[in-house]
């Protein structure tokens, strides 16, 4: 009788040289070893035992969470890779989780594709993967599929990460930036501009010493609490690139309303204010990675504020303004000084002023 022994248990490969080379992108054993050693081992438990070319989902299981699928993708490029309060790995997980959550979806699965510049330290890559793994655990999602490419030196800046996310939206929940009505209250969940300021400082060009840290965080827990307290919430947006000012303009445009905010009510850290004063930047346009703009009907504004403020990621929450009848798409701000100015979309990037 010819009985074949059962296949041996999968053994993870290892990388024993300090830098990533083009060989690690060649599709052969070196690549498999890199993926095993750096990614699979970091995502242990969160990744399936047998790797197919695609992740597979049981639709009945997905349907227990709701009646609509939410699907989003985002690429992450940041210089420096590690900065006070976070790193590119955390950003890649939280960013996509938040893009799902602001639509009211429960985030479930992520993909992770990395493009690595040859010469990158394997140790650095490991740190990033471990940080992603930690973020994934904390957010309660799993990375179920991925891809790795290695490109020539100079063809990318150290590492680019793309994550795609799938989540499910429960029945009856309809958030939309075109749902805002005059009278609605506009809230943010805390101090603005920390991420943008932290990144600019971390680049070190300015030689400014600050204690500002990125606010990057997964916000689906906070959003769940908010939606329970304010079920009539019109829309939620994360105020990433372009800052709060850009989000407000998008909302005002889509809903055909005017928005008026009050500078005195926009929460800002003293260090961020000082940083912006020195460089001539406007904090309303600085990026956030853990801040959302929330619009709720007036009768739910107090409940929404209480819900946000009661959460660890909502310290410093504030009602910063209201939607009003008026010129559609116009955002204005009452300045601390008592004047009123227009808060428009930013044209390009913010550049520091000369004097």
């Amino acid at each position, binding site marked *: 009788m010819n009985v074949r022994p059962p296949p041996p248990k999968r053994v993870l490969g290892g990388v024993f040289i300090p830098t990533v080379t083009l060989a690690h992108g060649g599709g052969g054993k070196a690549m498999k070893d890199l993926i095993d050693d750096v990614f699979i081992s970091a995502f242990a438990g969160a990744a399936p035992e047998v790797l197919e070319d695609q992740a597979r989902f049981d639709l009945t299981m997905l349907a227990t969470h709701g009646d609509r699928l939410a699907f989003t993708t985002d690429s992450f490029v940041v210089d420096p890779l590690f900065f006070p309060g976070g790193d590119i790995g955390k950003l890649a997980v939280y960013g996509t989780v938040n893009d799902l959550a602001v639509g009211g979806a429960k985030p479930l699965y992520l993909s992770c594709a990395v493009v690595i510049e040859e010469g990158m330290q394997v140790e650095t890559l490991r740190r990033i993967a471990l940080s992603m793994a930690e973020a994934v655990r904390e957010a309660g999602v799993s990375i179920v599929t991925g891809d790795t490419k290695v490109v020539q030196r100079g063809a990318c800046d150290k590492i680019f990460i793309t994550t795609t996310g799938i989540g499910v939206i429960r029945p009856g929940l309809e958030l939309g930036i075109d749902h805002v009505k005059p009278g609605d209250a506009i809230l943010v969940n805390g101090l603005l501009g920390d991420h943008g300021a932290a990144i600019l400082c971390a680049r070190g060009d300015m030689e400014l010493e600050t204690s500002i840290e990125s606010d990057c965080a997964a916000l689906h827990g906070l959003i769940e609490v908010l939606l329970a307290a304010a079920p009539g919430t019109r829309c939620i947006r994360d105020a990433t690139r372009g800052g709060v000012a850009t989000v407000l303009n998008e909302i005002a445009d889509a809903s055909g309303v005017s928005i008026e905010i009050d500078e005195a009510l926009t929460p800002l850290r003293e260090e961020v204010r000082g940083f912006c004063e020195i*460089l001539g930047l406007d904090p309303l346009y600085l990026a956030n990675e853990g801040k959302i703009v929330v619009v709720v009907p007036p009768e739910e504004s107090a409940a929404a504020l209480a819900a946000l403020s009661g959460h660890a990621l909502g310290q410093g929450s504030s009602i910063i303004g209201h939607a009003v009848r008026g*010129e559609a798409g116009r955002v204005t701000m009452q300045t601390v000084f008592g004047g009123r100015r*227009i808060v428009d979309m930013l044209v*390009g990037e913010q550049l520091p002023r*000369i*004097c």
Partner: protein
Amino acid sequence: MKYTDEFRDREKAKILIKEINKLAATIEIARTRPINIMEVCGGHTHSIFRYGLEGMLPDAIELVHGPGCPVCVLPMGRVDDCVSIAERPEVIFTTFGDAMRVPGSKKSLQQAKADGADVRMVYSPMDALTLARKNPDREVVFFGLGFETTMPSTALTVLQAEADGIENFSVFCNHITIVPTIKAILDSPDLHLDGFLGPGHVSMVIGTAPYKFIADFYKRPMVVAGFEPLDVLQSIWMVLKQIKDGRAEIENQYARIVPEAGNNAALAAVGKVYELREFFEWRGLGSIDHSGVKVRDDYARFDAERKFAIPGVKIADPKSCQCGEVLKGVIKPWQCKVFGIACTPEMPLGALMVSSEGACAAYYQYGGVKKHTAARPDASVAAVS
């Protein structure tokens, strides 16, 4: 923030606005037309828009946003020269951030960077000198730009380079001086100005005496003003008071920073390194005599203009631009034929749309809420049709 919040006090502003209203109501010219006050400096323009000051002032007062944005007034030909230096393979071209977007006849520095030039943003000329030290095999050029405010810092950097024997550093000097420019504006036949807010940080360097001719010869009041919103309001009040009293004097509201005699050490450094050019070309205003400086012969080896061959071609401003008329207060930004149509912050045609301190860009970006419908691009189409 201590030392700034005190100058942004809403309650004090209300009192000042009330006083300004009272005073403006008693001024004779305000019965037939608005009182035109020019803020010379781009920093003031920025504060005025940032805090929404125009909307707080009575209709009897018009603020005219002057030529004091050094980024805006740089002519296209000079930007082309910059780009030609920046595109040399051996050069690291360093610049302040907001000069990156200024359009030349073919491209801006930002576009040159995208095309492969090594253009880097720095925050001080000293950073450029550090780069030169770290890259001895490259030529580091600093884009010297600005009025007397930034002139001393580039002059001192040149002196430092000389002292340290750093030979791979040079300045592409586009520094300009404020006094001849104000004079050019005062000499213009279609002048409508009743008074000036004087530039605070320029005056910190040059003092207040150089403005005397404005009061003595042209009989216009000037108040050297600080940049916080209360500074600006108080200075407007002081200008109005002079008009009301029939006086024309140079007053100093910004005495906490501006010494009457200026800063001798800074002036000495400037005098050592730079000398006046016979004339300098301004975007929107044309050539103004003695309005620019160049590096003296003694420091020729730190002068990028002499170190590298530059095209030096004069490029005329686009014909459709009315920057000059806006600068002199003859028309408001939104009355320009191309405002918001052919000329936008994304694709600036004219000088004043370039930097956030330029009057047109400021209107486009922040708007004056009192007039904001007029400042909207779509509304301006209606205004010219």
